[in-house]
């Protein structure tokens, strides 16, 4: 799907909404100019949205229904720097890193479509490094909380569900980031090696790939970032 030509079916289409319906129900493809891989990733992300949605709703239910006070995230997630407590500073940096990695990913997609192997691979590697940095800071955050006595089954400041939800949701999101980093490295390697120019076949699927893989990888990566924004808003800022 390197060239995005508009499909001409040769059949006149009606205007407006009827045209949309006609396109949707027309033969071969419901979404014109969308490849199989990209459609699959979008539908997977829709399904994954429901998973994160259920996690966040469960957390909110627990938080709203508990009779024990909920620990104050601003204090719990503060770092003691230069003699004073700065609330949410680590989370702010983590968020900045992850959002920045979305930027580098978008640039990688752009250079991918320009067939610039070198810049694409470098930007993907940079994205992976930022992602790994995020996971590393998350590990630091977990270590700090654990050393302060936060456990999945309890914590010193209030409702036990605080620790349960925290470890579960950030852990599940961190797993997503980690898998993203692994796949970023795999695809960056393929780009670097020129698989998408030479039509080398995949090891498992024995299919030829193309530069669209970079964009599909980007979809996943942006999704993981977007989910983090919601976790940030609902868990840390609430």
């Amino acid at each position: 799907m390197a060239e995005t030509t508009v499909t001409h079916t040769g059949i006149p289409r009606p205007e407006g909404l009827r045209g949309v319906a006609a396109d949707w129900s027309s033969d071969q493809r419901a979404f014109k100019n969308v490849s199989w891989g990209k459609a699959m990733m979008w539908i997977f992300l829709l399904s994954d949205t429901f998973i994160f949605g259920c996690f966040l709703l469960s957390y909110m239910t627990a938080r709203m229904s508990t009779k024990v006070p909920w620990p104050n995230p601003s204090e719990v997630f503060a770092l003691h720097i230069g003699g004073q407590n700065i609330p949410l500073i680590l989370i702010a940096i983590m968020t900045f890193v992850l959002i920045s990695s979305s930027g580098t990913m978008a640039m990688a997609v752009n250079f991918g479509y320009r067939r610039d192997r070198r810049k694409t691979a470098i930007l993907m590697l940079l994205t992976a490094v930022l992602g790994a940095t995020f996971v590393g800071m998350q590990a630091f955050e977990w270590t700090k909380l654990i050393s302060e006595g936060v456990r999945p089954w309890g914590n010193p400041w209030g409702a036990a569900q605080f620790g349960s939800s925290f470890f579960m949701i950030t852990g599940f999101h961190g797993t997503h980031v980690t898998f993203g980093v692994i796949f970023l490295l795999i695809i960056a390697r393929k780009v670097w090696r020129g698989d998408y120019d030479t039509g080398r076949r995949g090891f498992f699927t024995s299919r030829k790939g193309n530069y669209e893989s970079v964009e599909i990888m980007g979809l996943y990566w942006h999704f993981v970032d977007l989910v983090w924004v919601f976790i940030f808003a609902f868990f840390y800022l609430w």
Partner: protein
Amino acid sequence: MVDITPRAADAIAPAEVPDVELYHPHSWWTTYVFSQDAKVIAIQYAGTAMAIGMVALVLSWLMRLQLGFPGTFDFITPEAYYQFVTMHGMIMVIYLLTALFLGGFGNYLIPLMVGARDMVFPYVNMLSYWIYLLAVLVLVASFFAPGGPTGAGWTLYPPQAILSGTPGGQQAGILLMLASLILFIIGFTMGGLNYVVTVLQGRTRGMTLMRMPLTVWGIFTATVMALLAFPALFVACVMMLFDRLLGTSFFMPALVEMGEQLSYGGGSPILFQHLFWFFGHPEVYIVALPAFGIVSDLISTHARKNIFGYRMMVWAIVGIGALSFIVWAHHMYVSGMHPWFGFFFATTTLIIAIPTAIKVYNWVLTLWRGDIHLTIPMLFALAFIVTFVNGGLTGLFLGNVVVDVPLSDTMFVVAHFHMVMGVAPIMVVFGAIYHWYPKITGRMFSEWMGQFHFWVTFVGAYAIFFPMHYVGLVGVPRRYPELGETAFIPDSVHTLNAFITVAALIVGFAQLVFLFNMLWSLRYGRDAGGNPWRATSLEWQTPTTPPPHGNWGKQVPLVYRWAYDYSVPGAPQDFIAQNDPWPGKAAPA
């Protein structure tokens, strides 16, 4: 139907997608075991599902033996009875019906019916089956684990599911159950993405969405629903796993067990019920919608008539799918939630009766003045309609809060859901297997064995589940292994229980005839030819039978019409295949 174009060739759009490169297997292993061909994967899925389904069938016998003749069988302790109930329900709903309809029929029929060479991602499709098999093995392993499988009931309600009073609650049973479900969901997602993308983006030229057979519509909609509903079960399983393993309290309130205060506290058991039923209710339609679709095609083919109201049928499927996401709490009327919720969910539940009734009317109107052939698939299709109407009517009882409250947790509920999502979809499963068996194997099944199987199964299912309604109405609770000398339960209940048990044993044995028929006909059945039912849809138009790898030989079919051109006046035969350009000329390839 407006979709028949006299100048068919003009309406075929040029190819938008180049023909796919198929992976060609090089060895026996990659052809038959680690196969990427959707048809082989379909048979693997169906075989595994039916094998584990036989286990669930035997479990139902054991339960019925206990209920029919309490105290006779020493090895069926109350704990064992709960384990049988749990595993029977879980296997039948998820590992048999969901896997068989979507993984089995979906894999076999979607590529063939939309004119594709295979699923869009054959490798991922193969992984889907192997992860499903792993899930089944983990499930089976729980039978051999210390303490046996979980006995929490198929709904796995906390807090009891992970307490020591429940079989498997503090042993491996519940852990293996949850692990197996998580694996199933991962495996299903891999397959489900394939089915959805194949239907949306992988159709052949001329196959518009509104020309697809209703079977594809049913399986497609059910798969989309499953992709959105299984996440809730996934989350619920993960959280319960944490409650059990890490001591979190997502679902666990403060409670005393055996005189001992547990360390749990502050969790919400109702939250689990919401998550479970947000999955659980769509699950009913995940099983029912493929059945709706398949039965539409069976009726149209065997009554030699176009399906009545095709567009309405499609919109009813989509509408039911959408509505089923906002009715889940009708399973929770007695859970103590706010009465206003009950009002809301009762209303949405009853609204579902509208698209469902549209479908039933359309099936009946398709039959009306049709040239009805009472073949085995048709008999099962007719049995589905009556059974589904039966189960649907008791659904009206249970959907209303005031009627549901006294009936809740009685055998009436058991009778209702077995009619509507047990017997009815199973009828379609059998009908569909008989219908497509000639295409899958190239041979015809034995007619008289099929007749025997049908009549025993159909009459027997009613003998089992009709009396159960009465048993429930007089107040017999479900999930009780033994009624004992309970004052309000009349003697007739005990007589009926024995009767139901005998009927269940007979129906179960009749399934052996079905299995024998399938195996015997594989070798001794007469040659079926490519299109024994003279059906229109694409899977019957393959160059060879059974269809080869890649399905279509050199050229994928071009589609000129919908799938229901039966008995068209003036046509040379009483059916016109979807890839037949009559009365026009074929489009250039």
